[in-house]
């Protein structure tokens, strides 16, 4: 079966657009989950030991707001949204992995609630999301 180059030219931007919609949903879901149970998210932040305890209420509010901004930008300014997506996920993954390496029981609070995470699953899932978002960003930047 022959594949026209015009077909793939159309397919890839469509895939990038759908990926942006998917990531926008992921970030919105993560943000709303944190807003609904902000106390659990604060407890989760405490397990990461990345912020001083007195700053936790502010961080617990800032993170979901930032996630909603990314969710919004993924639809309105796709390239910027994709760039922020993989950057944010990369920073989060590094911080959580460092906490796990210190032997702490870590809950990332990613989708609300307090539940200790499995390091390997968390790492594999985030690396996959980062890689696809990075590739989508490269494609998006190239097509501009």
């Amino acid at each position, binding site marked *: 079966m022959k594949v026209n180059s015009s077909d793939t030219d159309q397919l890839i931007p469509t895939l990038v657009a759908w990926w942006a*919609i998917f990531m*926008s*949903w992921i970030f*919105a*879901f993560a*943000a*709303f*989950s944190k*807003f*609904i*149970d902000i106390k659990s998210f604060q407890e989760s932040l405490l397990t990461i030991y990345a912020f001083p305890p007195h700053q936790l209420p502010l961080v617990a509010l800032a993170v979901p707001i930032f996630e909603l901004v990314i*969710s*919004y930008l993924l*639809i*309105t*300014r796709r390239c910027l949204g994709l760039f922020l997506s993989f950057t944010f996920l990369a920073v989060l993954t590094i911080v959580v992995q460092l906490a796990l390496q210190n032997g702490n029981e870590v809950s990332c609070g990613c*989708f*609300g*609630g307090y539940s200790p995470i499995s390091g390997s699953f968390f790492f594999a899932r985030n690396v996959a999301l980062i890689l696809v978002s990075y590739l989508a960003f490269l494609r998006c930047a190239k097509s501009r």
Partner: protein
Amino acid sequence: MKLTFSPIIAVIWAVALVCAWAQHWNSTAAERSDEAFMLAPSAAYQLDALWVDVSISGKLVPLVVPGKLVVRGDDETFSRFIAPRLVRDMPIVIVCDAGCQSSLILAKKWALEYQNKNTKALEGGTSAIKQYIEKAKSYEG
């Protein structure tokens, strides 16, 4: 940067909000259901209950309450001691090490199979047992 309204964002956010609420509701319902099977210190002092030790060492309760009748959750003790109490709706406390969930799983299983409302789980090892007894005594006055 100019803020623009997009119907796609409205749909995505609406769906995400519904999903987040559903997840929150589901997890709190599961927590509530688990709590019903956990031994609450405010409940009646259950030292007269049959204590079933499913910890690895099997010596949790005697360390805290010397002389207390404690049985293991094996087949022999189940048929001799546990089952007769289960059918009569008598209190049973299942204790386990910290981080072990066997007691909660067993409490749920026995409560469902024998319709026993007095089967409760106490996890957290010796420190949890000490804490429970102290709190239970303070509730008793």
